[in-house]
């Protein structure tokens, strides 16, 4: 006698004939055989690309014209582009640091004390004996606890 199966009242399909496999896809950075192949292909392609770039940079213009390749950038750019890239990299490092320092709130800004999320939090009543909700403690209370409480005085001495 088969045990009575409890049917969920909202089930639409009466009988499941296909078995669905649920595959857990884990995104992890660990090495895999496919990733090794991708890496090697990219390595070969980049080495080949560099070889082609050197070829274009060193072969004189006349020989390229003889083959039929006439509409290529000037040889000036063979030097200019790498130098531009390196200088841009260095300057962007300095500018990133400067933008960070510029965006830091000054000492007289209210953003150092509180923000709109901390001000908007209300006094929610928690269940008896339950874990209270995480909240922002006001700076006055923090100061009292650090510098005025008897424990603070004890720990400082």
């Amino acid at each position, binding site marked *: 006698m088969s045990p009575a199966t409890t049917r969920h009242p909202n089930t639409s399909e009466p009988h499941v004939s296909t078995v669905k496999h649920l595959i857990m896809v884990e995104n992890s950075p660990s090495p895999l055989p496919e990733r090794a192949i991708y890496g090697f292909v990219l390595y070969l392609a980049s080495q080949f690309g560099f070889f082609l770039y050197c070829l274009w940079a060193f072969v004189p213009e006349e020989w390229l014209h003889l083959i039929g390749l006439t509409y290529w950038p000037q040889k000036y750019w063979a030097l200019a582009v790498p130098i531009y890239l390196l200088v841009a990299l260095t300057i962007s490092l300095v500018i990133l640091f400067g933008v960070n320092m510029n965006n830091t*709130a000054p000492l*007289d800004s209210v953003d150092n*004390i509180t923000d709109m999320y901390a001000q908007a939090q209300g006094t929610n009543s928690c269940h008896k004996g339950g874990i209270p909700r995480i909240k922002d403690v006001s*700076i006055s209370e923090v100061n*009292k606890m650090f*510098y005025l409480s008897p424990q603070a005085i004890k720990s400082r001495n």
Partner: protein
Amino acid sequence: MEDEAFTDISGKAISLDCHSHSGFCREFTVSSPKVSVGKVMVYTCCVWLLAYTVFFFTQNTAVLSSAILITLVGMMFHIHFVKVDHESLLVIGSLGIQVSSCYASGRETTTFIEMSKIKDIVINEAIYMHQIIYYLCVLLKDPAEPKAVSSVVPLFQSSKPRLNCLVKVYKSCQEILSKC
């Protein structure tokens, strides 16, 4: 009157002077070290030597006179606008607080904040350039909205004392603020 060896955030020695005028009135003065004669002479000599070498190559006397003028004007500007001699905080219970800074030339700037606008005086930590410093600040509130902090006035901005000095001033201020 107390005078202990405190330092500012970069390690230079400063001095704190707490004066209790009465039960509800206290004044704290943080004094920075004075302009040292040696440093002034070193700067002046460097600038004038540089001007003399430029004159040696260009033979233009305007370089020398402009160097002298720049040194004099620069020193006067520094003493009058930049170099702070001492900063003081005067707390009068139920009346307000007065913040004043006195420059090396004798110029004094004063600000008075009335007690109804003051929410609290706290020690806050904030990012300043490449470091995080403790600084004492007055939290101001709008009388119409007593729960929210409307603005922040940092104190002792030029001398920037370290935490031990700030804790002393903080404890003393809280005694007065809690009474009123």
